């Protein structure tokens, strides 16, 4: 199991590195997809195959594909945008500083060791998950569905071409067409 976990972790990191460093956005999306798959695997490892499945379905199947489409729609030419080295260095500096800071805080706080003792496998079942989702957290679930609906509507509204609005030709130009 340990080896599998290690592999998945390495894959996740490698995919992420690709995703943030590749110039071509399409390639970067593939890197992201690798990471997402690896994380899905880690979810399975952590005992929740259902969530892992969802991750694959929605993230890898939905989101990355949508991104690819977006890239296609906005022409490939635009995918190459070179950042200045200073910018990358600055970003890296800040990000690493953040990572070090947070890492140190985590270390300072200390983390519990080992697997939690009383694990009831039944509590991890999909059935339990469904009961919980539609039982105790029903309201959250409904709210989320509303959010999704609104997001869809919003996306449509925002990206709709304003085709109804026809800019009238200037009157003078119309005049000129008549002899």
């Amino acid at each position, binding site marked *: *199991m340990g080896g599998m*976990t290690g592999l998945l972790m390495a894959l996740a*990191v490698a995919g*992420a590195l690709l*995703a*943030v460093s590749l110039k071509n*956005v399409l390639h*970067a*999306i593939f890197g992201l997809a690798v*990471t*997402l798959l690896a994380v899905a695997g*880690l*979810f399975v490892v*952590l*005992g*929740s195959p*259902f*969530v892992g499945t969802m*991750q694959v379905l*929605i*993230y890898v199947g939905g*989101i990355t594909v*949508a*991104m690819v489409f*977006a890239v296609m*729609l*906005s022409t490939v030419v*635009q*995918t190459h*945008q070179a*950042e200045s080295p200073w910018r*990358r260095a*600055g*970003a*890296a500096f800040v*990000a*690493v500083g*953040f*990572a070090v800071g947070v*890492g140190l805080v*985590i270390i300072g706080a200390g*983390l*519990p060791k080992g*697997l*939690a003792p*009383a694990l009831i496998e039944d*509590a991890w079942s999909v059935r*339990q998950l469904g009961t*919980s*989702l539609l039982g105790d*957290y029903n309201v*959250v679930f409904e709210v*989320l569905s509303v*959010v*999704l609906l*609104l*997001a*869809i509507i919003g996306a449509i509204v*925002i*990206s709709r071409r304003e085709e109804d609005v026809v800019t009238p030709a200037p009157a003078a130009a119309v005049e000129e067409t008549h002899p």
Partner: protein
Amino acid sequence: MNLESFVLLSLVLFTLGLYAVMARRNLIAILIGIELMLNAASLNFMAFNRFLPVEDPTVGQLFVLFIIGLAAAEVAIALSIILVVYRERKRIDVDDITELKG
């Protein structure tokens, strides 16, 4: 397999996401960074859910599910915004979008 390794992985993914958001100019690349950060968070939820003695282990999973759902919504909106920006400017460069400057 222990909690530290997952938290460390989560931190690395998050840092890489941050870096992408700050360094990249392409809006879609920035979106990729955001997804990485979201995944880092999800991973943390799952890991803590697994390694801490929680009463109801469904909570962590549900959180991840919600994050996934929200990510879907977020991407839908973000991509439509990107499309509009592209239509307006024929580019999707974050440095172009400075309407919020004071």
